[in-house]
């Protein structure tokens, strides 16, 4: 996962997340939209053989007083926590089933 900041202001961030695709980006976007202080979040990714920009670019707009990078970190930790508890629940369900 290589990160490259394309554009950054106080409340806006455009960042390229190399090596990822819809699998992770959509989960991350979903988490960002549920994060406090995030006004808008989306990502754009082009097909592999389209040439040009094929790595996903994540765009975040935040409300005043919230740094977009902080929001991104919080959202990523949110995904991590969620996946941690989901994994534990699934393991428990399989363990309970003979």
């Amino acid at each position: 996962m290589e990160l490259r900041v394309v554009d950054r202001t106080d409340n806006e961030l455009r960042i390229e997340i190399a090596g990822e695709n819809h699998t992770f980006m959509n989960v991350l976007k979903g988490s960002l939209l549920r994060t406090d202080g995030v006004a808008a979040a989306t990502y754009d990714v082009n097909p592999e053989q389209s040439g040009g920009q094929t790595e996903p670019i994540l765009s975040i707009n935040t409300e005043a007083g919230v740094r977009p990078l902080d929001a991104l970190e919080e959202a990523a930790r949110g995904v991590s926590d969620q996946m941690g508890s989901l994994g534990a629940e699934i393991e428990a369900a399989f363990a309970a089933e003979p």
Partner: protein
Amino acid sequence: MTDQFDVSFVTREERSARLLIRGLTPATANGVRRAMIADVPTFSIDTVRFVENSSVMFDEMVGLRLGLVPLTTPLEDYEVGDTVTLALQKTGPGVAYSGDLETADDRVQPADDDIPIIELKEGQRLEFEADAVLDTGKEHAKHQGGVAVGYRHLQRVRVVGDRQEFDDPEPQIVRGVIETEDGDVVHTDEFDNDLRNRYPGKEVAVEDVPGAFVFHVESDGSLSVEELFVRAVDSLRDRADELAEAVAI
């Protein structure tokens, strides 16, 4: 949506399962599905060194068939890119089966022993050594551990009244898994997908249950359904951790 998940089985077989998960967002459900297909690595034969091939097929054609043989994968001891050597010697007449493959590591062997590779006639012989490599479905579809992975919304069925005697007799087909008013979770196969069989003479309403997804996962035998699920969820968690780590700096 909260982080409260509820996981339960609808059906469970050796190589497939139907799992009801509540508390998921559509994005997460799709992330897990995609990760199961493309991001959980399995072993598959990738390079073949032929010693002798006097069968009716070219080396490349035999090689392609070998790649499609699912191999059991002990993920705890191998990393993506690792290889295991397999070999096969067979003289005709007879069929060379996947079960004839000899392996350097007993834990990496064909998931099924009865996959035909090629039929050898009198005097024909196949002998080769092959390297199986651990990689993901993203790299090549032969590395996919899940062969049929998908989900549907759980559907709630409510009885809203009695069907009139002369109401239209058309079937009410639903597919997937329904939740009844008593909280029972029933697969629609049990009543031939027609709600009229389950609720004779009743008028029913069907709606999706928000956040409840029924995953149907079928493995090709290289990994258990549990491993497939857990590894997919872990791969998403690892990526989130990596991103959080990278952003924090």
